C-alpha cells in the first residue's frame, strides 16, 4: 500500500523537466476541470433548435398566437355582426369574406381568430393549472409513500363522482362566464394529471441509477431536481400541449351540461360546434377553425415530442 502511495506522489524520474513544469495551483481552473461547463437546459435548447422543422413549427405557432392576439386589436370587422338579410347568410368564400359567412352572415375569418385567441387563453390557463397542480401533487404522491393510500382514495372518489353531477349544480349557482368554465374544467383535471405523473415518477424513482444515487446518499431534493424533473419535462410539455385541444373539446361538452359561456363569446369550440350542425351542407364553414385547431394540436404535439428527445441528456452529445 505504502509503496503505491509513494509512487503516485512522485513524478516519474524519466520525465524531462524542460518539457514538463508543475502547474501553479489555480482555484478557478481546478473547479473548471472538476465540473464540466455542461448546462442541461442550454444543451436541451441547442439540440431542440438544431432541427429545422422544429424551428419552422415554433415559428408557425408563435405566428398564430401573435396573429390571434393582434387581429382583434387591429381588425375593424365585428365578429358578432349579424346580417338581417338572409341573402348574406351562409355565403361561400369571397374577396369580402375570405372564408365565407356562417348561418347568420358573420364573417368566419374574423370569428376564427377571435375564437382562437379566447380558446388559447382558456386552454393555456387550464393547461397551467392542470399540469402545474398535477405535477406538484403527482411528485408528492410519487415520493411520499405515506400519502399514497390517501391519494389513491382521493383519486378514486374524485374520478368516480361524475363531473356532470356537480357541473349541473354549479350551473345553478354561478353565472355563465369564463371563470365558471375554468373552475369547472380545472376542478378535476389536476388529479388525473397527478396520477399520470405519479406513475411516471414511480418508474423513474425505481430505475437503477436513482437507486444507485439513493444508495450513495444523495438527498431526495437533489434526486428530484437533477434526476427526475429533467426526465418529466418532456412529459409536462406534451401534457400541456394536449390540454389545449382537450379544453376546446370539453368546452363543447360544458355547453351541453349548461356551464357554457356567454352566447356572444366566440371560442373555437363554439365555432366547431356550430359548424358541426351544417357540416354536410357547408363544410367550408368548418374548414378554417378546424385547420387552426389541428395545426395547434399537431404543432404542440410535435414540439412536445422533439423537446422530449432534446431533453434526453443522451442526445446532447
Amino acid at each position, binding site marked *: 500500500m505504502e509503496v503505491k502511495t509513494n509512487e503516485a506522489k512522485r513524478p516519474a524520474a524519466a520525465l524531462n523537466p524542460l518539457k514538463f513544469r508543475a502547474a501553479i495551483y489555480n482555484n478557478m481552473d481546478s473547479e473548471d476541470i472538476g465540473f464540466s461547463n455542461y448546462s442541461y437546459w442550454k444543451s436541451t435548447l441547442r439540440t431542440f433548435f438544431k432541427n429545422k422543422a422544429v424551428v419552422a413549427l415554433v415559428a408557425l405557432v408563435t405566428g398564430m398566437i401573435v396573429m390571434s392576439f393582434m387581429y382583434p386589436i387591429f381588425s375593424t370587422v365585428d365578429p*358578432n355582426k*349579424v*346580417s*338581417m*338579410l*338572409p*341573402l*348574406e*347568410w*351562409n355565403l361561400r368564400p369571397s374577396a369580402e369574406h375570405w372564408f365565407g359567412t356562417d*348561418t*347568420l352572415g358573420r364573417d368566419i375569418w374574423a370569428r376564427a381568430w377571435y375564437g382562437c385567441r379566447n380558446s388559447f387563453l382558456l386552454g393555456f390557463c387550464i393547461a397551467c393549472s392542470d399540469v402545474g397542480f398535477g405535477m406538484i401533487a403527482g411528485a408528492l404522491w410519487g415520493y411520499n409513500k405515506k400519502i399514497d393510500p390517501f391519494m389513491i382514495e382521493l383519486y378514486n372518489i374524485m374520478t368516480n363522482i361524475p363531473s356532470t353531477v356537480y357541473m*349541473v349544480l354549479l*350551473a*345553478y*349557482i354561478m*353565472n*355563465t362566464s369564463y371563470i365558471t368554465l375554468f373552475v369547472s374544467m380545472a376542478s378535476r383535471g389536476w388529479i388525473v394529471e397527478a396520477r399520470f405523473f405519479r406513475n411516471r415518477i414511480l418508474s423513474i424513482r425505481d430505475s437503477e441509477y436513482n437507486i444507485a444515487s439513493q444508495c450513495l446518499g444523495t438527498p431526495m431534493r437533489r434526486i428530484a431536481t437533477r434526476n427526475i424533473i429533467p426526465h418529466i419535462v418532456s412529459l409536462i410539455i406534451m401534457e400541456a400541449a394536449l390540454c389545449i385541444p382537450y379544453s376546446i373539446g370539453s368546452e363543447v361538452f360544458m*355547453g*351541453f*351540461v*349548461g356551464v*357554457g359561456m*356567454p*352566447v*356572444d363569446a366566440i371560442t373555437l369550440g363554439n365555432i366547431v*360546434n*356550430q359548424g358541426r*350542425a*351544417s357540416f*354536410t*351542407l*357547408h363544410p367550408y364553414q368548418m374548414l378554417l377553425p378546424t385547420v387552426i385547431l389541428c395545426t395547434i394540436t399537431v404543432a404542440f404535439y410535435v414540439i412536445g415530442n422533439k423537446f422530449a428527445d432534446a431533453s434526453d441528456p443522451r442526445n446532447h452529445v
Partner: protein
Amino acid sequence: MKRIAALVLVLALMFSFTACQNGDKNVNANQTTEPVATKTPEEISNAAQEITDAKEYKSVYRTSFNKSYASFNYFSTAYSTVRSIVTNCIDGLVEPDIYGVYVPSLAESWTANDDETVWTFKIRQGIKWVDHTGADTGMEVTAQDFVDGIRYIGDPLNDAYSLRVVRNLIEGLYDYYWTLDDIDSGEVADKTREEVLASFDNTVGVKAIDEYTVEYTLTSSAPYFLSLIESSMLLLPIEYDYAIELGEDFGVDNEHMLYCGAYYISAFERDKAITLTKNPLYWDKNNVTVETVEYQMIPEGTTSLEMFKRGELDDATVEAEEYLSMKGTEWEGKLIPTERSLSTNYLWLDFSGANPEFNTFVQSENFRKALQYSLNREAIASLRDPVDPQRVLRATINAEGAIYDGNGVDYTDYAPLKAVKDTDYNKPELARQYMEAAVAELCDENGNIKGIEAGKVDYLPVGTFEVDAKLPVTVIYVGTDDENEIVMAQLMKTMVEEAIGTDLIDFQIVCFSGWTYGTVADPYNYDIYFDSLSTGYADPSGILTRMTTDGAENVGGYDVPEYDALIDQALNAATFEERLEKFAEAEAYLCNGAYVIPFISSLRGYYMTNCMPFTSPLTLYGNSKFKGALVMDKPLTYSEYQTLDAAYEIARTDALKNAD
C-alpha cells in the same frame, strides 16, 4: 350590384307569395293553385286517380324516430312522442276520416244533449283486447273500459300527469282526484281511501249505462269534445284489472299492455326498434293496408335523410338548410313542404321580473309595441324555410286552419283576429317611434329611468346582471342552448337593436341548458322568453283559458282584467259562434296590447316520403295513423303531390259540406 338584383328578386318573390297567400287560406295554396288552376275539378280528380292507380304498393312501412320511447303507458306519460305509437295501437271512441270528419271508431254512434254537456257513445260489440303476439286475450272492450280509463287517471297514485283539461272537464273528477290526494298526504282523515274509491261511480260524470253504452257528463258545454277524444290519450279505454295487477309495470314495454287498435306492438327493443304488426282481430281490418310498420331509432337527422336516399327508410324530414343543399340534385323534385303546424312560437314579456329597467318599461304599451314592431318576422322565418318564409309567419296565438265554427268559418278569420293577421308588424321606424314615446313617458331628460335605482338583477340560475337605471334599457332574453334557437335569438337581438337603436335598448342574450320552463319561465327568471303553445283541440279555450291573469300558462305574470272578462264572456256564451267571437276578441286584445308577441308558427322544413298522401286519417290534433296508408316503392314527387293535393282539396270541400 348582383346582390341588390338578387335582393329585389327575392323581395318580388316574397310579395307574390304574400299575394297568393291572402287569396286563399290553404297553407299550400300558393304552390298548388298555379299549375292546376286551368283544369276542371273532374280533370284534376282523374289526374289524381291516374297517379294513384299507376303505383305499386308495399305492405311494409319503414320509418324512424329520434327520441326514445320512454314508456307506453298512455295515461301516465305526457311525452307526446308516445302518442304516435299509441294512436295506432289503441283506438278511441271516434277518429277522423281522411278529410278530418269524425267517423265511428270504437263507438258506433254517439249523441250529445242540446248544450253539449252530456255525450253518449254506443260501443261497437265484439272488440277484443289482444296481447303483444296478436292473440285474443278473451277480454272484450266494453263501456266499462272507458269508465275505467277515467277511474285510472282519477287516482293520483297512478301518476297521470297531463290531466288538466280532462280533470276539469269531466263532472266530479276534479274533486275525486283531490280528495284522494288529500287522503294520501294525510290532510283529510275522516274518509278512507277505499270509501272515496268506491264513490267513483256515483260522483264522477262517466257511466256505463249498459255493457255497450258509455256516457260522459261534462262540467261545461264542449262542442269540441270529439276533437278532445282525438287529441287526448286520457280518454282511451283500459282493461282495469289487467292494468292494476301489473301496477307500475303497466306499459313499460310491449309485453305489459293490451291492444285494440289497428296494430299491436310485436317487437320492442328499447332505444332501437319497434315493430307494429297488423291486428288480426281489428274491427276495421280491411282498411288497414300496411301489414307491418318498422320503426328504428336514428338520433341524427342527417342520417335518416341519407338512409332515405339509399332506400332504407320510407320517409325523412328535410331541414331548411338541407333543402338548399339538395337544390339541383335528383331529389329536388321530391321535396314536399310540411303541411301545417298548430303550434305557435311567441315571446313572453316578463311583467313580474326582478329587472327594474325592463319591469318599468314593460308596463308601457308603447314599449311593448316597440318590441312587437321591431322584429323582421320574415327574416326569422327564413331560418325555418329559406324559400317561402311567408308560410311560417303567424301573428295569432291559435293556429289558422284548426278551429272552424258551424258555418265552416275559420276562427282566425273572425273580425278581431283577421285584423291582427293582416297587420304588417315589420316596421322598424314605427318601433323607434313607439320607443321614443315610451322613453318620454318613463325617463327624465338625462336618460334616467324614473322611480328605480341601479342594482343587481338576480336571475340565478340564469345569471346575475348589473343595471344602472339609465338608458339604454337592459333587456335579458333567455333561451335554450339549442343551436337553432341561439341563432334565432342573435338575429332578434340585431333586429331589435337596429330598429330601436342601441342608445335606447340593450338586448342581452343568455342561453340556458336543460328544461328551461321550470327554472326560467316559471320563476320569472327572464325578461323575454321564447316559447310555443299549440292548439290542442277544436276550441280556442285550450290555450286561451290558461292565459288568463291567474291561468297556468300566464308565464309573463301580467294582469289584464279586460282579457279575463272577455274569456269569461266567451265561456258563458250561448252559441258556439258567439263563443268563438268572444275568444277572438280576447285573443286579439292580448295580441294588440302586445302582452305576448306571437310571431311565427313551429312549421319548418320539408319532407320526402314513399307514402301516398291523403290516404290515412287527417289527424289535426292527434298523431298520424298508418291505417289506410299506401306505401310506394319510389318517392313521391312534388308535381304528383300537387295534383293529388288539388284533387284532395276538392274532395274535402265536398266532404265537409256533406258532413254538415
